[in-house]
């Protein structure tokens, strides 16, 4: 009987042959895929809103998911440079390799901001392609949604009409929501803010907020005491109204500055799952605005 030991493998949870298997690198793209693909896709996110998407490891569980994926949906622009290439390689899955229809990078479909003047590591963790945190502007979400719906139809042509219909429905609801948000956020235009990480240029561009300083001395480098002190000093000359930080970032630097300067801190969800109310893309922007408006009355 001993030679039948391998039958134990059957006890391992084998996947049900169901819908399209999608692995999103970040929760916002998982949420968007769910909006567009409904029950035609089984969607998982490689990271959560409480994880720094730059610093993830290609864990065994992620490799196993990538192995079964028909489509990976990622931000691109170098955000996942440390782990996505390893994940793709280790997955031994030809469908999701770069250049294949199953490899979708959202940054390919929007105009990127903050393209660095100088590409050098001396500038910190810069992304030569531009800032990859594109999900904080709903207009980018709309553009990516269009492209993603087309990609879903390309990979799963049997349900092309279904994806197109869901995209049309999503676009309509998104448009209406954008109007609502634009109206509510009108008074934020011109408000000066300090960010912990340069993670919000798209949000600021959308709402007309003005970033006067960042708490990280260079992108991706931990805020140092000396740099925080210099920011506090600079704020005396060019005052700001609030401090902005993403949910996944440590609280200490922004709280230190808040204590010094008396400025309120807006902890933004940054992505879906980053707060109790950010359960989907609509909730993400509702909550982001609420928090900004509450911090800058």
């Amino acid at each position, binding site marked *: 009987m001993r030679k039948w030991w391998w039958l134990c*493998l059957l006890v*391992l*949870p*084998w*996947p049900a042959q169901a819908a399209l298997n999608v692995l999103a690198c970040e929760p916002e793209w998982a949420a968007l895929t769910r909006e567009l693909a409904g029950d035609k896709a089984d969607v998982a996110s490689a990271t*959560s809103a*409480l*994880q*720094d998407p*730059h*610093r*993830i*490891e*290609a*864990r*065994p*569980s992620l*490799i*196993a*998911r990538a*192995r*079964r994926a028909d489509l990976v949906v990622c931000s691109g622009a*170098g955000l996942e*440079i*440390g*782990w996505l290439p*390893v994940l793709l*390689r*280790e*997955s*031994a*899955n*030809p469908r999701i*390799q*770069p*250049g294949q229809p199953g490899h979708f990078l959202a940054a390919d479909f929007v*105009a*990127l*901001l903050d*393209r*660095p*003047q*100088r*590409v050098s*590591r001396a500038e*910190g*963790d810069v992304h*030569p*392609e*531009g800032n990859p945190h594109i999900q904080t502007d709903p*207009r980018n979400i*709309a553009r990516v949604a269009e492209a993603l719906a087309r990609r879903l139809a390309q990979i799963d042509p049997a349900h092309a009409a279904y994806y197109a219909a869901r995209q049309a429905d999503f676009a309509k609801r998104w*448009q209406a929501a*954008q*109007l609502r948000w*634009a109206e509510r956020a009108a008074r934020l235009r011109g408000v000066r803010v300090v960010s912990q990480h340069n993670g919000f240029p798209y949000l600021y561009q959308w709402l007309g907020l003005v970033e006067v300083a960042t708490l990280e001395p260079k992108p*991706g480098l*931990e805020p140092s005491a000396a740099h925080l002190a210099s920011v506090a000093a600079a704020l005396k000359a060019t005052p700001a109204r609030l401090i902005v930080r993403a949910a*996944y970032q*440590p609280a200490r630097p922004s709280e230190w500055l808040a204590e010094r300067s008396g400025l309120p801190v807006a902890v933004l969800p940054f992505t879906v799952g980053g707060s109790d109310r950010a359960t989907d893309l609509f909730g993400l922007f509702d909550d982001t605005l609420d928090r900004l408006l509450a911090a800058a009355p």
Partner: protein
Amino acid sequence: MFKRTLLACTLLAASQPGFAQDDLAAIRQEIARMKADYETRIAALEAKLKETEDRSVGGAVHTAASHDHDHSRGFNPDVSLILQGRYAQRDDLPERGLTGFLPAGHAHGSERGFSVDHSELVLSADIDPSFRGYANLALIDQSVEVEEAWFQTLGLGGGFSLKGGRFYSGLGYLNERHPHAWDFVDAPLMYQALFGERFAHDGVQLKWLAPTETFLQFGLEAGKGDAYPGANSNTSGIGAFSAFAKLGGDAGPSHSWRAGLAYLSANPKARAAHWADANGDEVSTAFTGDAKAWIADVVWKWAPQGNPKQRNLTLQAEYFQREESGQLACSGAGTLCAADPADQHRSKQSGWYAQGVYQFMPRWRAGLRYERLDSGTLDFGALPLDAPDYRPDKASLMLDWSPSEFSRIRLQFARDRSMQGISENQVTLQYIMSLGAHGAHTF
């Protein structure tokens, strides 16, 4: 323009009395929609304009630079150069080794004082849609060692991937890692005893990843078998063979793990080593026979909510057993082996290490490693050789500081009792700097 005319017409029409309230609402919505639409387009244009401005400000140099760094689109391979050096405080010992273990003849970084370790030059790229290539060259004074040089398939499908060339074997946890990715200055004693430092095949590797939710991977490797524990494999067949299985997954959002089991078999021919005869005089030995090894490894990682940036903990342990059997010959003028005797040799040895590395705040990590080998049974038959029964052990404590992902400075204290009768306190200050392409965050 057409849309504006349309808008004006609708407004005019809407201002006529008798227009239904519903229609008015619909028109308002339409106007709002169009307004949003225009705003979106203007924003896109603004972004494009800004981008163009940025480009023109940076000038031609900037455009060229960003092109060079465009990892995904450039034809040039990713290049990185790793600089490593150290200051080491060591006792002045004429020869180092592990008491009770036939030496693997590979002594890395045993220099005292200041020294520059080998610098690693790494090149990698997709070759075409089918293959990826990787080369790791170790630059040392007057020589270049090919640490790895292989191609790997990208699109075999079915979870299979094939690697060919010289590659670090997938057995154990640490074997595939280059020195710059180690958590301590040196490889565990276990790896030194088993392979000299690590085991590389000149051959092929076939891996299969099961389509399960739990990570489950199997690998088979076959190679020439020249590297220790193999030697002088002059064969058209397979000189060394290895197989491994790995299982891994997550336990909640904060924990993840991987465990593996591996087997290695090699057929060394006239594998040379230094040993001591029963009088303690140095003799040369040559071993021809079978060498087999089993390795079990387990790694457990913790990070709050799976976000390792602030704090994280890695616990790992590996255990091995090795058996060698075959013909051993010894020689040495003026020693007990002067007549070049030979006899059956058998050994069964084992060892393990366990370590924990804790990042207690950003940039700072502390680690502790304890390791122990067991010389086990050493049967030299009728050969007049010393057969020590000894358990080498070593404890290491390290503290490292990494200002960014690309640089690391490490201080390590170790109490090394790998040689019988010698208890050495080692202090090492090491730097590891990585230039160029972004390193991979492997598990």
